[in-house]
């Protein structure tokens, strides 16, 4: 790569784009968890079934039986995976928000969601 260049139009274009992306990333990292913590995810329908699932720290697991609307109690430790046609969404150890595919979430209604803890 050549040595440092002058700050021409390309630099300013890149700086604006990069600044915007980095600021957006920082804002997301700060604001979204705070927003999620401020709402009751159980009482609020989860948009596109993206949310969190409670998982105990002891590595246990459970099966939640859904008989109602898409309501998933949330906490930030785990990642749920599910697939169309599956009766159960399998929880994979992970960090952060869970994302249940829309089809899987629809399917999880009145079906069983199996949650397997990080001990697995």
């Amino acid at each position, binding site marked *: 790569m050549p040595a440092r260049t002058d700050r021409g139009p390309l630099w300013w274009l890149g700086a604006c784009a990069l600044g915007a992306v980095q600021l957006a990333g920082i804002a997301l990292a700060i604001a979204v*968890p705070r927003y999620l913590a401020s709402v009751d995810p159980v009482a609020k329908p989860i948009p596109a079934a993206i949310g969190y699932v*409670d998982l105990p720290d002891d590595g246990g697991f459970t099966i*939640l039986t859904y008989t109602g609307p898409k309501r998933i109690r949330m906490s930030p430790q785990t990642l749920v995976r599910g697939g169309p046609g599956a009766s159960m969404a399998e929880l994979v150890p992970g960090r952060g928000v869970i994302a249940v595919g*829309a089809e899987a979430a629809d399917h999880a209604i009145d079906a069983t969601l199996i949650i*397997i803890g990080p001990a697995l």
Partner: protein
Amino acid sequence: MSDRVVALLLFGGALACYVTTLTPGLCYPAGDSHELALNAARLGVPHPSGYPLYTWLGFTAMHVLPFGTAAYRMNLLSALAASGAVALLYRIGRQLALPVYAAAAAAALLGIGTTLWSQAVITEVYPANIFMMTLAVSTMLRWAEHAQAGRAADARRTFMWFALIFGLALGTHISTLSFAPAYALFMLSIDPGLLRRPKEIAAAFTIFLLGVLQFAWLPLRGGLFDVYPNTAPTNLLGFYRYTIGAFGNLRFAVPWDAVPLQLLLYLRRLVANTGLGGVALGMLGMWIALARDQRRFGLFFLLFVLNVWIFSQFTVPDPDVFFLPSYVAWCVFVGFGVHAVGQRLERWPAMRVGWLVVLGIGLVVLGRESFVVNDRRTDTAVDDFLSASLAIMPPNSGLVTARGAFGADAAFWQSIYRTRPDVPLVSDITAPVQASGAPYFTMMPLVRGRPPLGGAPGEAPVGLEQAWFVPVVLGEHRAMLSRVYPAPPALVVREGSRPARLNHAFGAVTLLDAVITPIPDAARPRVHVETWWRVPGPGPVVVATRLGEAMLEAHELGHGNLPRWQTDVGPVAQGIVTEAYDLVLPSRGAHDAPLSLGVVRFDDGVITTQWHVVEHAGAH
């Protein structure tokens, strides 16, 4: 030390890590692995977008690599491709004038990142795709060097190579096409005169099409095998739907108000892959790269942004792997960040050495985490389960598997390992349970006691309204083999028919008795489990089994059949619920730990599992 030696060392180091943790055979967590391996073996067409180049590479690996089983060789292909990508990322770093240590750190970070590592130890297309991506980027940078140095002939030749690599890369993942704007803008920023050379562009496009020509494989071979649930790519519409039209319903399908969450999820994945230090260095490195060369910065920035933006709105259950290209770009930026810090410390040699030590420790810590998470060398769940399932079926039994990609594990096992040719694999039961006496089995998961064979989940398959499906083999990862019964099997027996030897209460549920019988002559370890339970009603009770501290399986008692029993046969609470099945034990690992049965409870958001040891250490 020459760049070639460093690249070789990085390749060898990554390969050693991956091979050490490689899955020995098929694996369940990646649902496509079986299908990719099966189609590589039979030169077929996997799920959309068909992956012709990957299929050919897999076929070659199966026939050229001299180690292990066919499935192991496919896994090894992933390890080789991922290691190649690591070496190529080092080359990219050097092409960007990063010093050796910074380029090596960037490459090592990619290699130990948990996502690439997770794919490098199983059969998947992503390592090959990342290899092709890094090869394309490296070739593009080479082109830029020639173009900027005025070496027109070299630039033209390298451009043609890039076009071919880019076209071929689509055969490892068609999403590679989404990077075309980044490459095009980079080329125009380096050589705007390219637009005035339409012949050169036409030649490159023609060579690109030569690479794309691999997709002729789809109509040639797509009609030979079951490609359910997709339409075979045997006409133009089918071809479109199988390639660039595939998964259109999943693209940009995330609602706008959910996009911030998806992006947050991405950020957390980035942290998981590069560590907080990697994120910080990458953010710094982006500014350094911008200051050094806006055009090259723009290439990697666009690759990163395009990948994150597109796939954060892709609704799939396993989105992480789709972000691998963004991790490649990020690791390049980390390389700049590493170099920037190193440069600042040039005046203080001791601190500079300290920086290198910190860097090394950080990589080791991150690599150790990845090693633990992605160590799959003892994952024999698929082979253990299939071995047990095929062993227990009487001669000429019918085995109903899911069609297409979802039933490829059994098909791979039977066709590649030539096991139980008397057992026909069928994808549907078209008639009531066989009158010949040979039973049907299914490996499909049960929904409310029934396999998803047409109709809504939980509904009875057509023609089998009266049939009962009861698991007879249970394995890890929810693997189950169920037997089809024409009449209600003995799921509930009368009270008093079994002495309550254990009589262990888990709240309202009582384990009356359990008999664990070792099966000594089995090819792979398994035990026969019989249990008797008293439950308050047909409502869901979740029971689980563990060996020592390792969870083996969990299932709903009665596998969803109890509500139907209550309706069709009689009250569940007035009898004793009984289960009998073969439990597959991991063939790699200790088998002498105590076996426990447990009941799972979920009360007010608190999840607990109560355990009771039913067989002591060494009994099986």
